[in-house]
């Protein structure tokens, strides 16, 4: 096997803010699910129309047993054991949205969940500001994350290569490919800021200070729904991100995000 070239891939700021963000988002997700479980239903508009949620996880009595019923846009699904109801007749049923093994704390405790959530929301804000300000100032955003026109033109090829788990080599591998650039840009410039805005849109204090929050979000209950959907998209990004990290050289990728050093496999020799 040919020796690869070692490059310095991720700057110190990117590495630091990446890992802080990873930890912070995990805590925010788990404490967020604790908060969601206090009323596991979503609505659109300013107020909750309890008869017409767009999503609701409920516990329904079925004779001696309990069943979990999840309603999505008026369609009912039996989600016993997943959403709505956990446990069984012997150990006792638990009414809930998501399972308590995914929440922080790992049992019903809204007060503590809110404490974790808002403390880490501040960390999220400071870390995010540090990253964004540095990215603008250092040129990281322009240089490393903004796709060029030719890249955008060949997005189809890149997508096809990714689907076959074929990743760039040689000089091509020294920078992010177009799909990476777009995914990261959407996360750092759209989804993460949207989490903050929709989170603030749920705050009665911030709604009074900045009434435009309600107009932008379409109401407090819409803000809550947007918060949930945006969080789900970040989870989806996380899953794809992890798969990509694993299949494109797990150790190399992980090391580059810890020490910064990344081994670029040489491009195949062309005759």
């Amino acid at each position: 096997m040919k020796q690869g070239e070692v490059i310095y891939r991720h700057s110190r700021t990117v590495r630091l803010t990446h890992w802080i963000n990873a930890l912070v988002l995990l805590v925010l997700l788990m404490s967020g699910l604790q908060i969601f479980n206090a009323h596991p239903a979503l609505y659109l508009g300013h107020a909750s129309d309890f008869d017409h949620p767009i999503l609701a996880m409920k516990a329904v009595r079925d004779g001696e047993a309990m069943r979990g019923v999840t309603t999505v846009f008026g369609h009912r699904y039996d989600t016993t054991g997943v959403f709505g109801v956990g446990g069984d007749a012997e150990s006792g049923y638990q009414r809930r949205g998501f399972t308590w093994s995914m929440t922080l704390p790992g049992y019903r405790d809204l007060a503590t969940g809110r404490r974790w959530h808002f403390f880490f929301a501040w960390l999220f804000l400071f870390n995010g500001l540090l990253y964004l300000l540095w990215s603008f100032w250092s040129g990281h955003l322009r240089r490393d994350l903004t796709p060029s026109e030719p890249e955008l033109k060949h997005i189809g090829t890149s997508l096809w290569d990714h689907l076959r788990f074929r990743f760039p080599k040689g000089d091509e591998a020294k920078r992010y490919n177009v799909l990476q650039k777009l995914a990261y840009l959407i996360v750092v410039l759209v989804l993460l800021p949207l989490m903050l805005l929709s989170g603030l849109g749920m705050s009665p204090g911030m709604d009074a200070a900045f009434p435009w929050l309600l107009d932008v979000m379409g109401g407090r209950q819409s803000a809550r729904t947007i918060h949930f959907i945006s969080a789900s998209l970040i989870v989806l990004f996380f899953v794809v991100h992890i798969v990509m990290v694993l299949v494109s050289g797990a150790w190399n990728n992980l090391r580059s995000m810890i020490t910064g050093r990344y081994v670029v496999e040489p491009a195949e020799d062309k005759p």
Partner: protein
Amino acid sequence: MSPRRIDRRNFLMRGMALSGTALLAGCDELSSRPWVRRILDSAETLTRITQRALLSPDALAREFGEDDLSKTFRANGSVRVDDPAYLAHAANGFADWKLEVGGLVENPLQLSLADLRAMPSRTQITRHDCVEGWSCIGKWKGVPLSAVLERARLKPNARYIVFYCADKLGRTGTEADFYYESIGFEDAFHAQTILAYDMNDQALPIPHGAPLRLRVERQLGYKMAKYMMRIAAVESFAGIRGGRGGYWEDYGYEWYAGI
């Protein structure tokens, strides 16, 4: 792929799974430690100071139109009161009920519903946000708290207004079971802070806190004490019950419930 790389990957995956489990157990463990609580709770101070700085004292919570009124306005927390004295008041339409206003005031008051209704009033259609996550829109009519406080004439050392209620949420059989709440002057003298006696053009129904409940429109629902019996101006709430300024606050909820 070489065996060494498989080992490494295996090790990584196991490591991640293990640290995930440890993190979960660790966070539950941490949640119960007082020093962790103190650190987590410090975010409330940061949030309060920041929101107060961003929120002008006159900024109003959005007011809605009649068309926006919720068809069902959920009643939460206590929805009835078992106290015999309260039930006797309820039986005769709260005709003999009186709101006591005391504590650090020059002029303690006893106000009947008729007295309160004779005072200036404010009507507002606002959104009620429960800490659980849902919201309902209702129409409230009541006397501005500022008008009551001006009549009672606060002493200079008064800092907070405490609301004592007739409903019990706890089951310990002590005074600590009764609901209570407190607010600072930013909210006490805010235009939309009213002692509401009407809801949706009717006398305040029992599930919503008859005969009188507080409206603090820039905070969450649990601040808006129902079944109000007594108001006291105090210098500090540290010596009252759990010392955190409210029934739910004593169970770990934020005193500043602007978020």
